[in-house]
């Protein structure tokens, strides 16, 4: 961390980093625990010559985003829980036109209205969701305020590079905490940079017709292009942090707020002789399978630590681990895990008191 820091909430760091990445269009609808993003944009977007719109609903906000992205701007929206559900239709439309956009999903716990407190049970809607049709979103999961800024800044470049929707998957804890943060340099984005945008061209000049891309290039070419894109993103964009996995007996797998507690658990467990390690996915799609490739023989199993009822990340860990070792679930649902709880769980796993989890 450089000396040149600011103190910010995760939400504010996301919003400020977006502005510095050249985001000049934001539309959204308030919902806890991400409303500071919308509020920050309402105060600061116009200073940068951009557009802030408090939408009448999520669908309208996303449709405005769809238009603004098609017109060449760097665009962002944010939501949580039930609000994020409502964005799914337009994620599908953005995908069908290969349009870039950055979305923030700050997870709150529960189904229906649920809670306003942190959760990690929107993993599926983020990594598997995105509405109808076949698509992949790059999903970045910050675990600190500094990473909120860093990954948001990166998200705009990735969205543009792949002409794809990129999601920042945070949670009520990461969104609401204040930490030191080093902000990236401000840059401007040129809305005429790309040839695929809607610019309002003179008669006779080849026009862009943004419709289902399949109508224009046909299904075979579209399928090949998209599959190629999915594969490239999967191969190139896996990001993770490994903590003390070199000699670990059990490797915790956690992202976001849970990964923070896991770091403390690893440190404290080692003081009492329990060798824990941690794989912290920074991208949850693509899931960092590479992190699981070269683990030492000492590793006897994986423990997923998630704030959900059933394990949502378990499938991804199983695929990454290729059945090499059993998977255990330390699932804390509405509660933020505690380090002691994780250490006790791991002690019980190592002494055979806890059975491996069946991923359902």
């Amino acid at each position, binding site marked *: 961390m450089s000396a040149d820091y600011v103190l910010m909430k995760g939400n504010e760091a996301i919003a400020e980093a977006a502005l510095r990445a050249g985001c000049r269009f934001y539309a959204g609808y308030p919902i*806890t625990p991400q409303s500071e993003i919308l509020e920050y944009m309402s105060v600061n977007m116009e200073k940068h010559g951009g557009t802030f719109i408090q939408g009448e609903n999520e669908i309208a906000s996303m449709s405005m985003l769809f238009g603004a992205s098609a017109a060449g701007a760097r665009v962002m929206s944010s939501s949580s829980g039930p609000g994020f559900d409502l964005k799914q239709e337009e994620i599908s439309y953005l995908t069908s036109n290969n349009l870039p956009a950055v979305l923030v999903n700050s997870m709150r716990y529960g189904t229906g209205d649920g809670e306003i407190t942190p959760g990690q049970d929107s993993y599926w809607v983020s990594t598997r969701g995105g509405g109808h049709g076949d698509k992949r979103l790059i999903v970045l999961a910050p675990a600190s305020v500094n990473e909120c800024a860093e990954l948001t800044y990166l998200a705009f470049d990735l969205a543009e590079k792949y002409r794809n929707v990129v999601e920042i998957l945070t949670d009520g*804890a990461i969104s609401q*905490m*204040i930490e030191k943060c080093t902000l990236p340099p401000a840059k401007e984005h040129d809305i005429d940079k790309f040839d695929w945008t809607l610019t309002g061209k003179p008669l006779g000049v080849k026009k862009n017709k943004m419709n289902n891309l399949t109508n224009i290039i046909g299904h075979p070419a579209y399928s090949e292009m998209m599959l190629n894109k999915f594969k490239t993103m999967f191969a190139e964009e896996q990001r993770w942090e490994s903590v003390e996995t070199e000699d670990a007996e059990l490797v915790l797998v956690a992202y976001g707020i849970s990964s*923070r507690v896991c770091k403390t658990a690893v440190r404290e467990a080692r003081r009492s002789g329990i060798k824990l390690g941690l794989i912290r996915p920074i991208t949850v799609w693509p899931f960092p399978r590479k992190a699981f490739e070269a683990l030492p023989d000492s590793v006897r199993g994986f423990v997923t630590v998630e704030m959900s009822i059933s394990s949502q990340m378990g499938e991804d860990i199983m695929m990454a681990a290729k059945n090499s070792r059993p998977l255990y679930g330390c699932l804390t649902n509405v509660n933020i895990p505690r380090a002691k709880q994780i250490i006790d769980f791991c002690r019980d796993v190592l002494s055979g008191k806890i059975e491996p989890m069946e991923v359902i």
Partner: protein
Amino acid sequence: MADIIFAGFGGQGILTAGKILIDVAAQHVKNICWTSSYGAAMRGGTASCSIIISDEEIGNPYPEELDILLAMNEPSYHKFIGDVKDGGYVIVNGSLMGDVEYPKNVNVYSVDATDIANGAGNGRAANLVMLGAMMKATGLMDADSFGESLNSYFEKKGRNTPSNLECYRLGMEKAEKK
């Protein structure tokens, strides 16, 4: 270096007190982390914020054992007192505490924060009285330079009054060890 919770009623300036502390602390230590109970608890209910100050990387942002508890009312004291480490510090708002037998394994300091702030004509500054008492009791930071930083915090916000610093100093003076 320190795991801290500030707690009280919504509206007592709990979250602001925490923000002042991290604002100053961040100038001297590598890492700080501030978390709060948010949303429905904003007014009238219980408000609390956790602060971790550390030169090590901060893992769990929610302290599991406390070095310092600053309790601005009695329910908050009872809610968190069990989490305070042996030898830790507890600062209570004497104005809002009933008859409580304080535990022996921790250092308890009391200051009549609400009464002092009201007496100074700055009822909203009870949180600053508490901060004064906390600096005196714990020696977490140099008490005088913390006072100066507190002043500049409110200057930056554009809503400072001389009685802010006065309330902080009264907290330092009037804090009593129990």
